[in-house]
């Protein structure tokens, strides 16, 4: 086991952990970002609605309310610096019946208290003009122009890449197994391969943050995984919604919405079901039916037959507070929680990172700005977004741009190769998919899987049957042809 020394260890490299890592990368600090999975952004970050909320939902006074509006305000700048796709489309909450209209005014009022700018109630006519595919029975809507859509996993990857480029050390496949305390303070964080002696720990472990807190004896909150299921529709139908369309919210969720994705698909979901099992990412017939039924209420002409995939994500809901759990753990002043960051956690992430920084400072961490901090991160330029002339020029520079690997999303070999050699290691099929969109189109990897796997194996020096979908035991292939026959023959020979 290798021994390391840190100022701060951040546990968990989802949207929150990576935001904190990037924030701390601005200072002269030794920071380790520790992740149990083979890649960053593997938990709730990879499976959510990817909405940048305006901030009218949360009840005034909660962390959610405060940090949503603050996070929203800095989103455009962060996404510009990190070259992450973000569209400030605005969002609509649609009242389908007269008796839902008072709810819109409630949300409007709450929005005002929370400091959400430019909220407006619009009538049926204007709603249908903006959103011609919304249910014509709709009566009114709340318009929030500061809302938007983003690519959540790309933001997390971008934050991690930017953090690493500014000196943060990322340790993948290192679940935290034990945290050693000394005189009521955290002293050493243990993972399978490392013992990291550290001055501070930040707990951004998502749906496992209660278990990480338990490692320092804290049992004041627990995380309930709340499942949400989704359908993704073909890009041909992305235009059916111009912005996220919410129904009037229920007690536990913002409801099942219809939204364009920033990449041009149409997405519906999520339902909300509280579970015990933190790995239960199954989609279910009942859940998918619920999603479809309710989404059809909002948009009766949904292209039901053109779903390209469905998936489930788990929100990390902190009980009993239902709010973010932010700040030092009681009695362990150098262990800072950033837990229970469910919706609007993505929007709040930049503000959560600042809060955590301030808590660290209050707890005694000195912050000296790094002169060389570079806030910019270059994305992998998507070939599909360029003009024919620009595409021609790129192929001249690198012939690998002339080889299409994923036909649905027009991803070239050059992009896949780049994805595999960036500051954050990418070693899996899903990693390539999230960085390039190879396999995210309408054929869902039918065409590109063998091609991406071959490039991945070549670039990382693996045999094709060592390639995994998402690390661990998720091997894509199980040996070579003739293996079974030869081993049977051998067994017979021995017999």
């Amino acid at each position, binding site marked *: 086991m290798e021994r390391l020394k840190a100022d701060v260890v951040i546990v968990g490299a989802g949207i929150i952990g990576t935001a904190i890592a990037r924030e701390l990368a601005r200072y002269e600090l030794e920071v380790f970002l520790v992740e149990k999975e083979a890649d960053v952004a593997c938990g709730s970050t990879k499976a959510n609605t990817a909405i940048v909320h305006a901030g009218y939902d949360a009840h005034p006074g909660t962390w959610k309310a405060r940090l949503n509006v603050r996070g929203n305000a800095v989103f455009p700048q962060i996404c510009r610096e990190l070259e992450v796709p973000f569209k400030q489309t605005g969002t609509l909450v649609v009242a389908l019946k007269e008796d839902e209209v008072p709810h819109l005014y409630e949300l409007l009022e709450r929005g005002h208290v929370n400091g959400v700018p430019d909220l407006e109630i619009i009538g049926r006519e204007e709603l249908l003009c903006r959103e011609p595919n919304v249910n014509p029975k709709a009566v009114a809507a709340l318009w929030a122009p500061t809302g938007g859509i983003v690519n959540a996993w790309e933001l997390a990857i971008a934050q991690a890449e930017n953090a690493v480029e500014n000196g943060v050390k990322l340790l993948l496949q290192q679940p935290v197994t034990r945290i050693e305390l000394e005189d009521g303070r955290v002293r050493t964080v243990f993972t399978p391969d490392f013992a990291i002696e550290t001055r501070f720990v930040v707990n951004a472990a998502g749906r496992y943050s209660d278990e990480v807190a338990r490692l320092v004896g804290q049992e004041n909150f627990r995380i309930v995984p709340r499942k949400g299921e989704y*359908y*993704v529709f073909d890009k*041909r139908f992305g235009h059916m919604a111009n912005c996220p369309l919410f129904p009037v919210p229920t007690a536990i969720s913002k409801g099942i919405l219809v939204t364009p994705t920033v990449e041009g698909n149409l997405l519906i979901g999520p339902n909300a079901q509280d579970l015990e099992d933190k*790995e239960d*990412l*199954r*989609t*279910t*017939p009942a*859940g*998918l039916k619920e999603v479809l039924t309710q989404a059809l209420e909002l948009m009766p002409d949904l292209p039901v037959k053109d*779903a*390209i*995939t*469905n*998936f489930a994500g788990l929100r990390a809901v902190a009980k009993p507070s239902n709010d973010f759990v932010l700040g030092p753990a009681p009695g362990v002043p150098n262990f800072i929680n950033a837990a229970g960051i469910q919706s609007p956690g993505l929007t709040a992430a930049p503000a959560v990172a600042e809060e955590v920084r301030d808590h660290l400072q209050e707890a005694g961490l000195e912050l000296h700005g790094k002169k060389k901090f570079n806030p910019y991160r270059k994305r992998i330029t998507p070939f599909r977004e360029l003009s*024919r*002339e620009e*595409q*021609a020029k790129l*192929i*001249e520079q690198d*012939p*690998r*741009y*002339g*080889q*299409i690997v994923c*036909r*649905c999303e*027009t991803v070239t070999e050059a992009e896949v190769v780049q994805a595999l050699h960036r500051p954050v290691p990418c070693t899996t*099929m899903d990693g390539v998919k999230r960085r390039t969109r190879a396999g995210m189109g309408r*054929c*869902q*990897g*039918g*065409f590109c*899987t*063998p091609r991406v796997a*071959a490039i991945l194996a070549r670039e990382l020096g693996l045999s*094709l*049957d060592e390639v*995994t*979908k*998402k690390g*661990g*035991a*998720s*091997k*894509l*292939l*199980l*040996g*070579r*042809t*003739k*293996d*079974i*026959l030869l081993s*049977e023959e051998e067994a017979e020979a021995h017999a």
Partner: protein
Amino acid sequence: MRKIECDVAVVGAGPAGLAAAGRAKAAGAGRVLLIERDRELGGILQQCIHNGFGLHLFGEELTGPEYAYRFITENQAAGVEVLLGTMVLEVRPDRRLYAINRRDGMLEIQAGAVILAMGCRERNRGAVTIPGTRPAGIFTAGTAQRFVNMEGFMPGRRIVILGSGDIGLIMARRFAWEGAKVEGVFEIMPYSNGLTRNVVQCLHDNDIPLYLSHTVVEIHGQERVEGVTVAKVDEKLTPIPGTERRVPCDTLLLSVGLIPENELSRDANIELDPVTGGPVVSDEMETSLPGIFACGNVVHVHDLVDNVTRESWLAGEGAARLVQGRQPRGPLLNTRAGEGIRYVVPHRLHLANLKERETTLYMRVREPAEHVRIEALLDGEPILSVRERVVRPAEMVSVKIPPGSIPEGRTATELTLRVVKEGERG
């Protein structure tokens, strides 16, 4: 940007593109350019190492590569030019193509006629909405076929196959011959979706069970597939509660249908038939855009490559006639899918062609039936009737209309095809 001019540009060099390009050249088109995205010609045929190709056309049982090879050598001798590793990104209505490859970079190709022969793709898990987890080990049958036959790797060792499409049946046998355990083929319909000969040769001969009226209702496993839950379905194809059974496996293969690959056609605003998923075509195999032709699985999914070839010859011929100014003139009549028929291809027929040559209409029936007649009605009046002992949705029906079947001077507008039970009068 390199610019190329040609008489006929063919997009895709699977069986359709190979046949169309060769025939265009033979019919007198000058410069014929065959554009293929893969590293070699032949398309999906290259991974179809089983035999049975060409039985109808050549009276021989060829393997996929052998079948392709015949056309490849013929084209080579005829002087068809080939661009390999080249992806067409865009087809413009003025028959200008944009394509890329490593060597030439971006190519702008101006063609006199374009033939679309992009083939089809497999429906996947999302298209059929199978609930459950999302582990490694879920493949479409064709992707698995590529891994086994072209890369030499095994996608799995204990296999469940959902859907009884032909590729699924072929792969069931392929896996069995590799020593893998094939737990069964589960088909949601009460009948198989593959050719009868494949059910017999692939499943029966290898003791692989076929479960009709069954489907997969859940996928299990976090990292790699660990099993699936299967269930019986009722007449509405809804799983019947209480019939669920868990089948351990490490791999789920999907053979749940094929979809014509019409991204390029759609972007060019070519009219598509919502039933076939492919372009609406005339008997010249010309689409709604003049000078742009289509053939093979991009038009409608075939079950026999022999028919793909025949249809593609028409497209090649049609494109050659166009560039030589020999296209048929005069009125067209529409074909229509009547009772019991899902679709008919081609969609429009030149009366001039009907007079001069035999015309083959390809169609699929809605449901299996025995002892029927396929009837052709010209504006409601029967002109032709063909007996079929058995018809099944999985097996394409072709009806040949002899030259001169339409009475001289007749102003017809519609030819309807329908299924009539033997003994009943329509």
